[in-house]
């Protein structure tokens, strides 16, 4: 039997919905559950409707479901907006100061007054009430508050206790073990991965939904040994980062679509000058400013083809926090091993979703070596080699004159207009791409899950993996997720699709960008399920779509 439960916390922007949600997630984490939290908010600072859905399951999950078992309503709107998610068994907990409803009301103002606590602690009352209703032992609440609300813990607990004591344990949640995962967002996981991959400089200009990575690395810069720089704009971002890389430090940048546009010229420079660079792009609904705080998977084609001219690039699109961690580290490695731009293509769902990472199972990543100059022969930045990869040296290295150049250049890095050298250098760069592709043979670039032997296969990418996996398992379908999208893992994909007779591609965009890529690679695509209203596909919705397609 599957144990699982979902909790919705809703209220106005600025009311701390996100942190309330995180506390709820930690409570469920303490019961041994894997959790996922989706946080939904419009692009504004106060007011407007925010909500979080915390889902807990005894299996790893990467997305929320439509229906919820508990609702924590900080305002009336929460109950109205989400009615579809409730049934008669849904436990309704609310702030009775501002919400009228049947169910378990607790007065936030009274708790605060009684404890002489500031308004900011109000949510604790409601969380306390939830804990009781869900049968969570008070000890667990104490434990979670102590670890995760270190400021004013005692007062917060006192406020929570008032909520706890006011309601009844109507629908206890069964503890499922004593596993205790680490709850991290996709952005944080990517940040950890970058650190694991040896990144020592992160340069970014804030842009939702990538800003979390900037904030995370800035906050932990000292511990991780990462220099974090926030310059005047995204053009400066990528060029500063290229300066860092040239000087020998592994640099990464992060942004979203509009900011990435401004990096494309620097990207092409990196391609030509063969300067390693890691680029984290988190997608949101476009075009243009679009929906800054809502998700999409509509920049794949852009990322794959951005920049004038032709040069190899690495692109990985992780589907959950675990993959974000691992592939961010790999991206850093690939950038340096092959001296190419390496992308981590995320989306809002992944970036800002909170996932469970099981620390016990976390592999420590070993950063690979790059091709360093041996100091013996005369240094030539673009020396021809069998692999197309020239040895790296950095300014300051005794005896090396390191000349990088965005013009067509010769092996020494001096500008040339000689047609022969120009085409040879183009071949050199493409050769690196071939070697990159070959090097990836050792990696699990395609994830095969669901029911691997099923004749129907769903292919997806990025965060939609979470919904696909569940829908596929439920419907007996094979799930195939190419994590690496450039170089395109043709062969691994073909293996994963062996025996599949019907292929359905699921994406959060309007034109089927992965589907196009598949067709280009000669893969059969029988149907596409496209979803593009900014909200992540849930397993429920996807199942419905799949059933329709499969009819």
């Amino acid at each position, binding site marked *: 039997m599957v144990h699982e439960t979902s909790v919705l916390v809703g209220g106005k922007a600025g009311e701390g919905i996100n942190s309330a949600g995180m506390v709820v997630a930690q409570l469920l984490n303490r019961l041994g559950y894997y959790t996922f939290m989706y946080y939904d908010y419009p692009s504004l600072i106060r007011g407007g409707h925010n909500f979080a859905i915390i889902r807990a399951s005894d299996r790893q999950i990467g997305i929320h479901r439509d229906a919820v078992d508990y609702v924590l309503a900080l305002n009336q709107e929460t109950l109205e907006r989400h009615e579809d998610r409730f049934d008669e068994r849904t436990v309704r907990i609310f702030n009775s100061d501002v919400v009228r409803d049947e169910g378990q009301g607790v007065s936030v103002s009274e708790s605060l007054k009684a404890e002489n606590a500031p308004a900011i602690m109000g949510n604790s009352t409601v969380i306390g009430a939830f804990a009781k209703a869900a049968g969570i032992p008070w000890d667990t609440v104490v434990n979670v508050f102590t670890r995760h609300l270190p400021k004013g813990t005692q007062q917060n607990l006192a406020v929570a206790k008032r909520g706890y004591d006011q309601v009844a344990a109507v629908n206890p949640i069964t503890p499922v073990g004593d596993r205790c995962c680490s709850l*991290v967002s996709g952005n944080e996981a990517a940040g950890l991965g970058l650190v694991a991959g040896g990144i020592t400089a992160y340069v970014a200009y804030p842009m939702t939904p990538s800003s979390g990575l900037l904030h995370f690395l800035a906050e932990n810069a*000292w511990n*991780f040994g990462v*220099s974090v720089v926030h310059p005047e*704009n995204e*053009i*400066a971002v990528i*060029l500063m980062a290229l300066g*860092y890389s040239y000087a020998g430090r592994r640099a990464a940048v992060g942004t979203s679509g509009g900011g990435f546009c401004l990096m494309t010229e620097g990207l092409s420079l990196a391609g030509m000058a063969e300067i390693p660079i890691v680029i984290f792009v988190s997608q949101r609904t476009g075009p243009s400013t679009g929906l800054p705080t809502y998700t999409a998977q509509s920049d794949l084609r852009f990322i794959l083809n951005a920049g004038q001219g032709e040069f190899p690039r690495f692109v990985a699109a992780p589907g959950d926090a675990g993959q974000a961690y691992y592939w961010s580290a790999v991206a850093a490695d690939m950038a340096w091993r092959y001296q190419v731009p390496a992308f981590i293509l995320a989306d809002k769902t992944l970036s800002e979703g909170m996932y469970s990472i099981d620390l016990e199972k976390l592999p420590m990543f070993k950063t690979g070596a790059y091709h360093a100059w041996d100091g013996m022969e005369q240094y030539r930045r673009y020396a021809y080699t069998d692999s197309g990869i020239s040895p790296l040296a950095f300014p*300051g290295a005794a005896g090396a004159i390191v000349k990088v150049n965005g013009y067509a250049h010769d092996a020494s890095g001096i500008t040339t207009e000689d047609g022969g050298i120009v085409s040879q250098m183009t071949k050199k760069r493409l050769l690196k791409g071939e070697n990159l592709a070959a090097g990836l043979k050792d990696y699990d670039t395609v994830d095969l899950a669901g029911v691997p032997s099923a004749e129907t296969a769903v292919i997806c990418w990025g965060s939609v993996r979470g919904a696909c996996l569940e829908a596929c398992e439920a419907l007996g379908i094979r799930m195939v997720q190419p994590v690496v999208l450039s170089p395109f893992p043709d062969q691994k994909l073909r293996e994963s699709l062996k025996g599949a007779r019907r292929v359905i591609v699921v994406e959060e965009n309007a034109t089927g960008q992965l589907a196009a890529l598949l067709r280009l690679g000669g893969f059969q695509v029988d149907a596409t399920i496209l979803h593009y209203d900014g909200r992540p596909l849930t397993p429920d919705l996807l199942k419905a779509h799949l059933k329709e397609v499969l009819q």
Partner: protein
Amino acid sequence: MTGRQLITDAQNTWCPGCGNFSIQHTLKNLLADMEKEGKDLDTVVLVTGIGCHAKMADYINVNSFYSIHGRAIPVATGIKLANPDLTVICCVGDGDAYAEGLDHLLFAAKRNIDITVLVHNNRVYGLTTGQYTPTSPLGFKGKSTPAGTLEFPMNPLDLLLASGATYVARGYTRKMEQLKTLVRDGVLHRGFSFIDILQICATFFPMTDYYNKRTYDLPEYDRSVFDLACSRAREWDYNGDAPIALGVFYQREGPTLDKKVDRVIRSVQERDNAILDFLASRQ
């Protein structure tokens, strides 16, 4: 590498009479001097934009980053932040640094990052065959403005002073001795050094006579007085026929960004532990 040849074998393709030769010569001599004085030239990096000026990256035999149009400064900033032991010199154009990438120049000044910027200010886009730039005089007839520009030029010195540059100078390619001093002092200056170099473009804006007639050397004065520097800088507005002062307009000491930034080097072990610590904190 000591005793190196300071000029590469790359074929030089500047026009005869081009002021860029003077700047190249200045850099070469300066580097030679520095090497004699014990400087390790392996720690010198030249960063350029795109334009005639930028060919310097090909010609001077030191580490170089031949970047893209308008973007030398952020590259230089990144290099200096990554390794403050490097001496970073930028050769940029007026189209390059005053038009395409003006913001970067001003932010570098604001940050007081310890790099030296030489603007090869020929007041024209040379390499794209003669369009007006932000410092071309009003009415300049370039290929994009055959009837004459409608815009008054900017005064880069004034802008850089307003942006917080701590070393602001102007040189002239026909005054090479002075130019060398200006560049040397700029490189030695701890902080952001800006040198606007009036550069002859033999082909599209041959102003030799004009400049020869009007340029004069700044008299000795207290360079650290900002208001004085401003009024000096405004004497000539890059448009009218006023006398054109050459020399250092302004200089002051101030904390530089590259020195202020924390640079913690972590071992792999430390990093792995930091990752695990963070994850543990989220349990």
